[in-house]
């Protein structure tokens, strides 16, 4: 079917199975592993620190979990230049709206804003070097409940009931999270200490099977970027806090 847009994407080496997946039809982006899951205290959003270009480690100090405003997080996977610019645009847009209208932008409008940016990035996506597949975590002002959304590179948004992942190592993470959701212990009922340790273990697992995932190194006190989102706002977990929780989790 020559006119089928979705059939066109693999031919142009655009993303079909998620950013950074290995395979002949995938773009040469091995950027990241980010994921988010519901726990008892809200949503925990996690990411490693690695950015790669092909088989070269570009940076091991990359921040991929970005605070867009006091109740919105974006986890970036894909082309960092495009993703960081999207985040900056959204940060300005959300804060401008909040300050000028004296109320925060609705969650639906925030989701649509990110969707629009992704759609506008279609040329980059089609050319295979500017694709972004982010995760978005926000809080609905009316229900005060946090929610996780994931996007395809064309801007379609989907709410994740329990968890979502993006980037080259996300397949391993999602497999483990699916197992836990099905057989337990359920992450959604975990307290924050257990959830933090689970997130670090998940990154360790992802790094085992994906060279583009930086993973963690407890011996060097090098842990994930972790942010908890709930109706109270965002809480970041420092490396020292994670190291302490890691030690306590091993006892």
């Amino acid at each position: 079917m020559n006119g089928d847009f979705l059939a066109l994407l693999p031919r142009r080496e655009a993303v079909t199975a998620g950013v950074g997946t290995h395979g002949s039809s995938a773009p040469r982006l091995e950027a990241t592993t980010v994921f988010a899951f519901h726990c008892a205290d809200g949503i925990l959003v996690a990411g490693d620190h690695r950015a790669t270009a092909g088989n070269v480690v570009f940076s091991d100090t990359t921040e991929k979990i970005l605070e867009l405003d006091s109740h919105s997080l974006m986890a970036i996977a894909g082309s960092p230049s495009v993703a960081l610019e999207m985040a900056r645009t959204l940060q300005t847009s959300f804060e401008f709206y909040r300050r000028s209208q004296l109320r925060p932008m609705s969650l639906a409008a925030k989701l649509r804003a990110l969707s629009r940016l992704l759609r506008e990035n279609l040329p980059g996506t089609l050319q295979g070097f500017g694709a972004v597949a982010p995760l978005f975590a926000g809080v609905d002002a009316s229900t005060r409940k946090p929610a996780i959304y994931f996007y395809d590179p064309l801007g379609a948004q989907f709410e994740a009931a329990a968890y979502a992942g993006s980037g080259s190592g996300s397949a391993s993470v999602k497999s483990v999270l699916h197992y836990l959701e099905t057989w337990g212990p359920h992450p959604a009922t975990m307290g924050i200490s257990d959830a933090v340790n689970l997130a670090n273990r998940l990154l360790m697992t992802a790094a085992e099977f994906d060279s583009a995932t930086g993973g963690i190194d407890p011996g060097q006190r090098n842990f994930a970027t972790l942010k908890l989102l709930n109706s109270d706002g965002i809480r970041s977990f420092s490396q020292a806090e994670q190291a302490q929780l890691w030690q306590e989790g091993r006892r």
Partner: protein
Amino acid sequence: MTDEPYRWLEAIANRREYIRDQLKDATPVLAVSRPEGVILMGVGTGQSKVFEVYDRLALAALGNPVDIERVRQTAIEAAHLDGFTRDPEDVTARRLLNFSICPALKGSFEQIFAAPLLVEMIVAEVALGQANDVLARVSYDGSVRYLTGGVAVAHTSATDEASATEWLTAGLSPALSQQEVVERMVAVWRKLVSGGPFAGTAIEMHPSLDIAGKTVELAILARESRTQATYKPLILEKAE
């Protein structure tokens, strides 16, 4: 009319008189630089007087609510455009005043065939250290005074404004609690709106921060903030 210098000067003088007359019933707004940040206060009856502008910037204004809103929107747009084009660090009170707010006010004041903006305000910026906080007193004609004493009062009587600033400056020590600072700000506000002479008379302190029939609006630009936005509504426990 404007091609005759005398008539232009007369028109400007009439305009000043008109603006002062229109603003005479407006209630004052205050800002105080403290070790924990910059506290802003306004008292209204439904309309807000204290606003967040950008990450480290806020304003407290008196005047016509529609005009306050126009100036507020101008300030917010200019600040966000600057922050997006460059970096949030580059958005400063001086830049915002010199390139956006003051030219807009001056332009409006001198356009003698159009209605002027009926606004006076304080623009505040919190810095990493208290010594570098910026408090600017902006007049309806776009002129601006940068205040160095850590206290700013905007009131329609220049004499009372100076006396209130002096009293507050003398009465605020770093050892005072936030509650005590706000009590003094409210006391000054009460004294200014009571109508009598300010200088040489005692200022009555009330433990209650409530003002009958009005809403006391308090906000702080917090010096230490976990988020980029430092502006937060200040909620104090009310005394019984």
